[in-house]
């Protein structure tokens, strides 16, 4: 029976939650990576390796790697820096992706580095130079709070040269030539602020793609939830019916392109679930209607925040959903969100949750 592994990136290290195939009993390990702040961690099934993007206040940024499911670790930042002559610096490593034997890491100031030797060394792949306004991305006055830079990289499992990236506060970009050239993919998004360039200037929090229909994408944006039916070439808003147009996390059902999950949050300073009631919201009709999923989640005085990379979904026939909070809880559902259990309670603030199936 396949085991399930959750990779929990937190402000104080990586934690692993492991269960057998029924996903009921969970064993927690951590903190790992010497308790470095871990912004994101992924599992590379082909290599059997875990990678974790860590950024220490004292010792800088590096990518940690483990080839034995977290028992032992090594870290490297060899090549993970801009030229000394450049003003831009790598202040943190924010996002990871693995594809076809290569590891990609997104950094701030915005750029993507790649490793072709399993994370032992890195080389700059792109800074998306030449995109509209990119000359101002390194200006501290232009940077979004949190300073994530490249906040996400999403690969195409069928084409290693094809992937998408989000530049925080700027928008979504697509490459079909392994990062050499990029095209903005923000048409139809809402932007309620002045934007000097029509194609960019959007605040995309989370992008997901339907495994059952690659042309179907969803995103939780700073301003609304949006859907694309043409692989991100155009977007339309599907926020109506949700309690807030703001949120960070999102997940797409692995087997049904019309089922999608978000966690609406108070858009003000709180950035918590509204009214102290925890809920994941689900659409089963591509955003025509929305319904809260609350059973097992705290419904009183629960001021929970969930960040952009902190919800994920597995690939089971009846998929499991998982999210981690800014107050250190991890919740799991094994029935598509109908019922929830708290499977970890006292972790540091959770920044990312990923799931892997282990043979």
């Amino acid at each position: 029976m396949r085991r399930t592994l959750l990779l929990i990136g937190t402000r104080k290290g990586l934690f692993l939650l492991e269960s057998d195939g029924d996903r009921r009993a969970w064993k927690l390990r951590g903190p790992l990576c010497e308790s470095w702040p871990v912004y994101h961690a992924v599992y590379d099934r082909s290599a059997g390796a875990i990678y974790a993007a860590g950024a220490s206040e004292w010792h800088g940024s590096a990518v940690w790697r483990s080839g034995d499911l977290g028992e032992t670790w090594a870290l490297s930042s060899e090549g993970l820096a801009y030229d000394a002559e450049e003003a831009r610096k790598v202040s943190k490593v924010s996002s990871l992706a693995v594809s076809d034997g290569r590891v990609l890491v997104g950094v701030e100031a915005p750029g993507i580095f790649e490793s072709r030797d399993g994370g032992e060394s890195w080389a700059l792949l792109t800074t998306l130079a030449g995109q509209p306004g990119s000359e101002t991305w390194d200006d501290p006055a232009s940077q979004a709070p949190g300073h994530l830079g490249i906040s996400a990289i999403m690969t195409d499992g069928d084409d290693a040269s094809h992937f998408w990236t989000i530049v925080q506060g700027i928008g979504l970009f697509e490459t079909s030539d392994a990062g050499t050239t990029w095209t903005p993919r923000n048409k139809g998004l809402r932007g309620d602020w002045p934007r000097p360039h029509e194609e960019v200037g959007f605040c995309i929090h989370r992008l997901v793609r339907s495994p059952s229909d690659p042309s179907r994408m969803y995103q939780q944006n700073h301003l609304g939830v949006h859907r694309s039916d043409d692989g991100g070439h155009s977007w339309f808003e599907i926020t109506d019916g949700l309690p807030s147009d703001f949120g960070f996390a999102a997940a797409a059902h692995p087997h049904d392109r019309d089922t999608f999950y978000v966690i609406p949050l108070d858009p003000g300073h709180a950035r918590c679930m509204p009214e102290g009631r925890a809920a994941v919201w689900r659409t089963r009709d591509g955003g025509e209607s929305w319904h809260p999923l609350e059973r097992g989640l705290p419904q009183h005085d629960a001021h929970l925040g969930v960040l952009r990379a902190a919800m994920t979904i597995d690939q089971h026939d009846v998929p499991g959903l998982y999210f981690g909070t800014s107050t250190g809880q991890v919740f799991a559902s094994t029935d598509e969100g109908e019922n929830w259990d708290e499977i970890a309670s006292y972790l540091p603030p959770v920044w990312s949750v990923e799931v892997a199936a282990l043979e």
Partner: protein
Amino acid sequence: MADLRLPMTLTPLFDDLPRRLELDAATVDEAIEKLEQRWPGLRDRLCEPGPVLRPHINVYVDQERATLDTPLKEHSHVDVIAAISGG
């Protein structure tokens, strides 16, 4: 031989790196380079491109705040400190 003390956050990152060691070096930068040769990757944990010391890494030579260029004497005490920061 300079007497070098390293922060507790550094030593778990490298096999057999001690908290305290002695080495011959003419400057702080040379001392770090000798550590780098023995423990590859260590320079990145203390320095940024430039190279300069990382913002929250403080080095003192004989109790005086130092930079990479600061010279070392034969019996200098070198303290590498992870600054009081974070929470």
